[in-house]
């Protein structure tokens, strides 16, 4: 499957695409969309016929909250995950038993690709629960037969103790958490000698950060990509060449488009990744606009596997990924509106402090919330911090600024200043 090429691959993709379009017909949204576009499953004869299909956007999925996009009866849905939630409602994704099996297979394939075997001891230091990274990797690693430690997040000293005591050879976590582990390990005075493989994902990390992580943790690191809408992580993964991520062509039909003109772009041209999963049962998606910016790499990979995408750094919308949690500026605006003591203009600064993402929000205090006392202000500040933590599940810093002091915008506001850049 991994090395399938040319005619053979295209035939498989076309067959699976037709199957997906057929299943999508069970979803009222797609039924209407396909009817309006005048596309029937039998119109899909070749892979290129995917271009006959309209795009699906994140907002469409939100409109179907909670189960509007399920193509199977709920009794066949054996698990749901949700995204961290944007303006109001999160996106709910469902899985049939077959879906979970496909997903585990995919993760196992990735882990095998980077040389892991049933001899390895795998610590899964990501959030378990609704976040797909936890259970996704957990079952994939079990499928491969590794010894899995579901350590989840938090208590870094304990995490380090487990790595040392259990002889952990492979670690999966966010790159910023890996950096934190490296620092704490240094303080404790362990070099984590058993670690050899690091799998990092769920947030962008620079080449510079990779270099430092590999030096500090003395391991080889691999980038992992995915999103809940494509099952979760594992949709694309770095092979040992570590020059781009193979996006699994038997499971996903990937396209790169210009996010503005929606024109389909060729290899080497940077644009938005659009994905049509080819094997999803519970929740088929047609030409899903991921919002992630990347490109197809022009050169074939020496490993012989299929198409690769460049490592991901940007988004076509203004979504922020803070410590693995998706945050939309519109969401922050929504939250601030619920706090009468502050205005709804704001600026978000994102920094990496001690290798962890820190979000600082500047917000204007409202004139009528100030009666001259300092505690009016601290109360308002705490209220905003609390509302943000409640809604985003993130600790943020809130800076109160003077009324009318933040920049006003006509049209699209520039509200985010991401200073993580290429720093560590």
């Amino acid at each position, binding site marked *: 499957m991994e090395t399938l090429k040319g005619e053979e691959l295209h035939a498989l993709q076309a067959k699976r695409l037709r199957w997906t379009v057929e299943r999508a017909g069970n979803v009222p949204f797609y039924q209407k969309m396909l009817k309006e576009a005048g596309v029937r499953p039998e119109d899909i004869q070749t892979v290129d016929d995917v271009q006959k299909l309209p795009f699906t956007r994140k907002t469409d999925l939100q409109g179907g909250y909670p189960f509007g996009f399920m193509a199977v009866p709920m009794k066949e849905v054996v698990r749901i995950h949700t995204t961290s939630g944007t303006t109001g409602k999160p996106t709910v994704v469902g899985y049939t038993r077959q879906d979970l099996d496909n997903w585990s297979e995919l993760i196992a394939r990735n882990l095998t690709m980077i040389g892991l075997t049933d001899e390895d001891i795998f610590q899964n230091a990501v959030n378990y629960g609704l976040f797909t990274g936890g259970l996704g990797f957990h079952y994939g690693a079990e499928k491969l037969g590794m010894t899995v430690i579901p350590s989840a997040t938090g208590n870094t000293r304990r995490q380090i103790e487990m790595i040392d005591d259990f002889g952990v050879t492979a670690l999966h976590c966010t790159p910023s958490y890996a950096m934190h582990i490296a620092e704490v390990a240094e303080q404790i005075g362990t070099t984590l000698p058993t670690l050899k493989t690091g799998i990092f994902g769920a947030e962008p990390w620079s080449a510079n950060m990779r270099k430092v992580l590999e030096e500090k943790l003395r391991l080889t690191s691999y980038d992992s990509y995915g999103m809940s809408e494509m099952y979760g992580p594992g949709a694309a993964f770095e092979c040992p060449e570590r020059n781009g991520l193979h996006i699994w062509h038997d499971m996903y039909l990937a396209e790169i488009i210009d996010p503005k003109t929606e024109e389909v772009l060729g290899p080497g041209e940077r644009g938005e990744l659009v994905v049509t999963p080819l094997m999803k049962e519970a929740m088929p998606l047609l030409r899903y606009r991921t919002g992630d910016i990347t490109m197809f790499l022009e050169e074939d990979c020496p490993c012989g596997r299929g198409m690769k995408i460049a490592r991901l750094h940007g988004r076509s919308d203004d979504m922020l990924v803070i410590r693995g949690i998706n945050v939309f500026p519109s969401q922050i605006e929504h939250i601030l509106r619920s706090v009468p003591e502050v205005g709804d203009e704001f600026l978000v600064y994102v920094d990496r402090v001690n290798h962890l993402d820190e979000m600082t929000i500047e917000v204007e*205090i409202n004139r009528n919330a100030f009666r*001259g*006392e*300092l505690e009016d*202000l601290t109360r308002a500040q705490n209220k905003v911090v609390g509302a943000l933590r409640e809604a985003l599940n993130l600790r943020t810093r809130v*800076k*109160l*600024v*003077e009324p009318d*002091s933040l920049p006003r915008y006509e049209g699209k506001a520039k509200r985010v200043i991401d200073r993580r850049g290429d720093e560590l």
Partner: protein
Amino acid sequence: MDITKYTIKQISVFSENKPGRLAAIAGALQDEGINILAFSIAEANGFGVVRALVDLPEAAYKKLNAMGFMVSFTDVIAVKMRDVPGGLFEMASVLSEAEINIEYSYAYSGREAAVLILRVDRVDSAVEKILAHGGTLLSVDDFS
């Protein structure tokens, strides 16, 4: 007794904790020919409140407000301190016995004696008690 006479209008200005804010406030007051008699800064977590007693509170309020500052009046009292050991104790005891809470205070050296500015939870009772115990309060007129 005219308690309002002893109720001094302090201006309280919200200010971000960054260079130049105090200079902007003080400069604006200077431009208007307003004299600052006493002032203090209360600071918390990235911002603060500049509190000042000025000779022309209404004019100061108007000016700062027009400049976009967030300004508010706060009622305070100004106690003339006796320059002897126990002066502060005496005054604090009077308020404590009357169960009046001091929210904050700051001092400045007046022309004749040190002056303690007090923000209390019950201004009227504080004025009554202090005067009844023979304390001296500065009146609005002393500031203009």
